[in-house]
């Protein structure tokens, strides 16, 4: 059993917790604190929204098909040498 996290410790771990980059023990401690602390839950929503907006902004974009064709042509030229 780890020591319960206070607000400060929870917020320190928040970014890593949101990205699932914490140990199971830390995750459990963060979640236990969030379950009990409404102000930290609001803060969590704030950070989560920021993260989702970043993912969304980039995910729309993909490699243009005409560039992909040029790329394949260049690659096959190189491979055919």
């Amino acid at each position, binding site marked *: 059993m780890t020591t319960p996290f206070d607000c400060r410790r929870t*917020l*320190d771990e928040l*970014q*890593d917790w949101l*990205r699932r*980059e914490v140990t199971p023990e830390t995750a459990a401690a963060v979640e236990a604190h969030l379950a009990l602390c409404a102000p930290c839950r*609001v*803060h969590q*929503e*704030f*950070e*989560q*929204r*920021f*993260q989702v*907006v*970043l*993912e*969304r*902004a*980039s995910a*729309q*974009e*993909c*490699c*243009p098909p005409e*560039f*992909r064709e*040029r*790329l*394949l042509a*260049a*690659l*096959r030229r*190189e*491979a*055919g040498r």
Partner: protein
Amino acid sequence: MADVAVFEAEVLPQLDTLYRVGRRLTGETADAEDLVQETLLRAWRGWAGFTQGSNVRAWLLTILRNTFVSRWRSRKREGTSISLDDADPHAIYRAVGSQDPEGHFFERVVDTQVLAAVEGLPDGFREALVLSDLEGLPYAEVAAALGIPVGTVKSRLFRARRLLQTQLHDHAVELGILKAKP
């Protein structure tokens, strides 16, 4: 020629990722295309050295990033030095305060503006943020691609996120979505 088919089968599923990262690092479509093409050609030349079954995305992103550093980064402005060492990580959350504590303003900033703000970050911060927060790579993979320790990745991400939140906040204020701090 069978070899090139195997190479393509491994590499082409990563093309969207390479293109997006190239786009964010160079900030230009034409440069991004050159960077991705150069990356794939280098990858093909080094294909014999790739261990089958290991992480092809991490391998390609390492090549892309090294190519970017040697060909592009030197010509472009080095990131302005920013001192954020004692910055409060939650400064923007506090600045927004009771106006929008759940951060809905982030969703009202349009994608192109978010991406422009990302492209304006200093190089080292931008590289870490693009790989981690935009592409969702684990910290360990970001560290491998950038050739830096995980601890350095985390401190760069900390600063990059803080800087980006500040810019998106300021943008939301300009648009009248948020009121300026008193």
